[in-house]
């Protein structure tokens, strides 16, 4: 192929630089209204200042706490339940209708109930995050348990593996990639619900801080905190992908991906 003026590796950096320059210049020359869009350098400056303040890290900690507890509770309930339901054909059929009915209910509809029952603190946040994440993990686990290669199960059976042995040697290992994907999506969902609870209910955390910055008229701080929340989401997702790749390096889906890269 012909040599290009700009090599591939430089493209992402250039596009990021272009966006930064755009959001620096447009407010300065007045294309974007200055009172709503501070130049990006001021936002980043504020973000750097925030990184030195304990209040900011408290908010990050609160958000992370809600995220982790919500995801953890959802996983602790959904994975065993998914394995039990998924292992029995009849039980699966019995529960499918119920699951399909409950799953599409938007978890945010339960916000008022959470306020009534759990108040405006951490518990509400964790309840909402856990409820929303639960379905992602449950459905992924169900798929995983059912997608076990029947030849593998039959082979294990004819070699005289007991039910329990089959569960741990055959079913679970082949379901793990599905569960991992479910957990990754559930992690994003848990973060979304945590931030929502902070915003709507007013539990302590980044969501509430963003809203307070807006109502206090501190635009730079609002943008800085939104950027911080985005970075948090990005970091959590990257960590999940990395861990998934490391834990599942033996699995074909990961090998294919590694080869494609």
């Amino acid at each position, binding site marked *: 192929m012909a040599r290009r003026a700009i090599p*591939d590796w430089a*493209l*992402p950096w*250039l*596009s*990021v630089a272009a*966006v930064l320059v755009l959001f620096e210049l447009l407010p300065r020359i007045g294309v974007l209204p200055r009172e*709503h*869009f501070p130049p990006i350098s001021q936002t980043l400056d504020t973000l750097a200042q925030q990184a030195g303040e304990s209040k900011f890290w408290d908010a990050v900690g609160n958000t992370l706490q809600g995220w982790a507890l919500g995801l953890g509770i959802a996983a602790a309930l959904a994975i065993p339940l998914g394995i039990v339901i998924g292992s029995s*054909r*009849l039980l699966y*059929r*019995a*529960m*499918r*209708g*119920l699951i399909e*009915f409950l799953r*599409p*209910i*938007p*978890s*945010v*509809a*339960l*916000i*008022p*109930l959470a*306020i*009534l*029952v759990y108040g405006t603190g951490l518990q509400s946040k964790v309840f909402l995050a856990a409820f929303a994440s639960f379905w992602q993990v449950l459905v992924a686990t169900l798929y995983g348990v059912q997608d076990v290669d029947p030849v593998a199960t039959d082979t294990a059976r004819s070699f005289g593996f007991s039910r329990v042995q089959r569960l741990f040697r055959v079913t679970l290992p082949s379901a793990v990639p599905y569960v991992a994907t479910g957990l990754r999506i559930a992690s*994003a969902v848990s*973060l*979304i619900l*945590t*931030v*929502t609870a902070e*915003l*709507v209910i007013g539990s302590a955390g*980044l*969501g509430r801080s*963003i*809203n307070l*910055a*807006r109502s206090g008229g501190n*635009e730079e701080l*609002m*943008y800085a*905190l*939104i950027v911080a*929340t*985005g*970075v948090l*989401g*990005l970091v959590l*997702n990257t960590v999940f992908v990395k861990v998934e790749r490391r834990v599942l390096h033996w699995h074909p889906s990961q090998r294919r991906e590694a080869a494609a890269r």
Partner: protein
Amino acid sequence: MSERRQRWLGVGLEVTVPLLALVLWGLLSAGSDTYYFPPLTDILSTFADTWLFERVGSDVVPSLERMGLGFAIAVVIAVTAGLLLGMSRRARIAAAPIVEFLRAIPPPALLPFAILVIGVGSSMKVFIIAFVCIWPILLNTIDGVRGIDPTLDDTTRVYGISSRDRIWRVMLPAATPQIFAGMRTSLSLALILMVISEMVASTNGIGYFVLQSQRTFAIPEMWSGILLLGILGYVLNGGFTLIERRLLRWHRGARASALG
């Protein structure tokens, strides 16, 4: 047990278990004097009083309008951008960090920004719904376009088919199954963002009604709103599945014949 009997038993259970759960809820809550958990019969009668059809015009229609508009805008933008990015590898590389970052921001965190810049009216809600719904559709469209059979792509080139026809007749249809998968994810996001945006700043809508009921301790009304949102989620999801099956019938047919 015979294969056939087992199948009927399965279907029967699938229908009866949700009904049983509903009956159980009704029985357990029947004599309930717990303030927060009123009897199911109270909730249902309040549901009939509130939503059939007194508040349909004032709350349900505005909510659905905002959701539908936001979703439609997202589909148009995301499919167009997805086609462009899917066709050019270098554009994809360049856009990747920006897409990844915008997608990683938890959507509700952008609500204060939308309120600040656009205000608290309907357009703010449409904006936030559209913004959030773009990403799943965009990424799926890109994947769909990239996944086109190279032979098919080469064939259309060799036969000198114009790029306009190639986009409309080859790429778009080939990417449709993926685009629909993205749209389904986005649809449930649209419902969620509709509710959140109405809870944070609104004077009407289902989300507003539910939160307002809780604040005024109108508990059966609050439950009736939650029930309505649940039904709405179920109906939207089910309706979309039906449309998808209908529109993609050719796809499954084509796959089946290719496999057979």
